[in-house]
């Protein structure tokens, strides 16, 4: 069964995924030592994909695909035809920069889908990225969260402009759907409704 939740006109349904996610081939992850502990360094903006990986990424000829941002930028010629046919989407990880996407594409809405990969659910950068894509860059198409996507973050993801959620494979999407309705009247304006409660309702004088 599919684990993809799609939100349309405030109604959430579990739907089949028509997109194929293209992953980068595995590479040596750069590991640095600090203060005696091994930590993975993936600071904002740090190049975390190698030329080798980009070159070796397999792009299928047929079907709708979501390609990694670095591949999308480096191999844009190759992808131009598919993009024109509406069969290319882009995914990026939370440490990557949106500017790298927006400066490498003439019209962001030529992408039918942008997906953001969240490695750990506690990484809240995804909320700012969604907010910026919708508000700053006026992205109107499908915005998907995938990776460590769990029920208790769905409400925040929805409010940050996401309208599709690929729930982590070992969890039930059916159960997770309930998370979208945790609160009925949030206080602050966000992407789903930019008006704060004091502008949405007459709270008296």
């Amino acid at each position: 069964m599919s684990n993809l939740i799609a939100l349309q006109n405030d109604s959430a349904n579990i739907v089949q995924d028509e997109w194929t996610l293209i992953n980068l081939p595995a590479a040596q992850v750069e590991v640095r030592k600090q203060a005696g502990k091994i930590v993975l360094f993936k600071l904002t903006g740090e190049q975390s994909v190698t030329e080798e990986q980009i070159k070796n990424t397999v792009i299928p000829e047929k079907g709708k695909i979501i390609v990694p941002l670095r591949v999308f930028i480096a191999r844009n010629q190759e992808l131009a035809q598919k993009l024109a046919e509406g069969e290319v989407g882009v995914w990026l990880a939370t440490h990557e920069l949106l500017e790298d996407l927006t400066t490498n594409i003439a019209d962001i809405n030529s992408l039918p889908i942008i997906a953001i990969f969240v490695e750990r659910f506690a990484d809240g950068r995804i909320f700012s990225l969604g907010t910026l894509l919708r508000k700053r860059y006026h992205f109107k198409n499908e915005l998907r969260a995938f990776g460590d996507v769990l029920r208790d973050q769905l409400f925040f993801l929805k409010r940050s402009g996401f309208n599709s959620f690929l729930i982590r494979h070992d969890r039930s999407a059916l159960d997770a759907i309930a998370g979208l309705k945790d609160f009925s009247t949030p206080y602050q304006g966000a992407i789903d409704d930019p008006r704060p409660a004091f502008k949405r309702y007459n709270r008296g004088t």
Partner: protein
Amino acid sequence: MYKYDEIDQQIVDERVAQYRDQVRRYLAGELSEDEFRPLRLQNGLYIQRHAPMLRIAVPYGMLSSKQLRKLGDIAKKYDKGYGHFSTRQNLQLNWPKLEDTPDILAELATVQMHAIQTSGNCIRNITTDQFVGIAPDEVIDPRAIAEIMRQWSTFHPEFALLPRKFKIAVSGTAEDRAIVQAHDIGMEFYRDNNQQIAVRVWVGGGLGRTPILGTVIREHLEWQHALTYCEAIIRVYNLHGRRDNAYKARIKILVKALGIDEFRKQVEAEWLHLKDSPNTIAETELARVAQHFEPMPYETLPAHDSNFDAMVASNPAFSAWVKRNVHPHKTAGYRAVTLSLKPHGKAPGDITSEQMHVVADLAAQYSFGELRASHEQNLILADVKLSDLFAVWEKARAAGLATPNIGLLTDIICCPGGDFCSLANAKSIPIAEAIQLQFDNLDYLHDIGDLELNISGCMNACGHHHVGHIGILGVDKDGSEWYQVTIGGKQGNDASIGSVIGPAFSAEEMPGVVQKLIDVYIEARTEEERFIDTVRRIGVAPFKQHVYADKNQAKEGAAA
């Protein structure tokens, strides 16, 4: 104080339901330990040494009598009959059962309270001056904006999972009592040249492992933009703050790494997009919320009360209490009263269920049914008539709430420490108790005068040791507990971070060490000089010399 409408009530009710289900899923094994942790933390629930600890939010320190009675009842029903006021004006229960916490929250919701965002990597409870609204030096009462910010920050979707915790303090007085410089964001309200309400915005302050005082990021911000400007700051932090190392994840580290100029540039660039967006505060919303914080219906009273003056003159114990625990008030004939939660030999900030009821009754009878918690871990009755002070004192004294030590050495700020907290390196409460007993002579205590002694059981600095005139930090050395001493820290407009005097001491040595610091002060002080002034004038060296004299002698003796 602020009263919930249906929207506020619905949010806390839905939170109870959400949290109840999260606990159910955790107990049923549907949520892993790692997945449940941030969820319970954002609801104030820690798993501690002996039991969970539940931290209940007291927004900007304001409580009603009704709420305090409920807290007392909850502490009795679900805990061991007492609670602990923290340095962030919240109330902590040390012994609740995990299974009971949804019911506790449901009970809290009936008195318009909650535990939302009292922990976790999110925007925490907003704190302020305990004399807000009544202090003679207050320029702006910031409570309405603080409440608007509380609502804005509650479940803010973009800032639900920040790199690390995020603390905001607001203040609107000439003399800062909210330590705005020691917060991630400090909002200092003032009237600008056009008599409009404006904010001086501080950023990047914080205690903890790396104590740093904040820097002004914006001198002048019109109040309407308070939310959008904070959004700009927190967005830059959310995107660029470090997430690879919890010890380097606070905003202060990002501000230091980028430098304030670059950080300001990024924030201002972000704010250009956010300025005037719908989260801009409407005049009508400020007016709606502000009416909850209108001045109390004060009587017109003379500035003096002859009975009160007579009691002060004739009763030395009352007089000592008035001197330390009674504070000036904007309105003639009224005073603010601090009820001390620092009786000598007891855990600072602790209060029993019975005492909570006594305080609630005192507030109901003498102070318009409201009270405040201070970051110094005491309770305040803000609006007491001069003529009622004696009666308040007698009742407070009978309940053990009238120790005349406010602002004195034994008014110790202290975290729960190793007795309760699983983060702690060392115990802190027994150190506080031992020092209080060492200085149990009230005349001596009053002679020593104004002195802030702060104790933290680890470098997370919940006890604000960096800004104590004397700061004590529990450290772990090879599995045993030691205490590092700093002097010269201070909160307020001229805030400073204390200097370490030298190698750490054992628990048994601590009362003696404090005694020696005091001896140097008494010897060196000029008339009118407080401890902190003497430290600033003569420096750390004379204190260090005296405190370590015996140790050095012992060493030399051993060498010879």
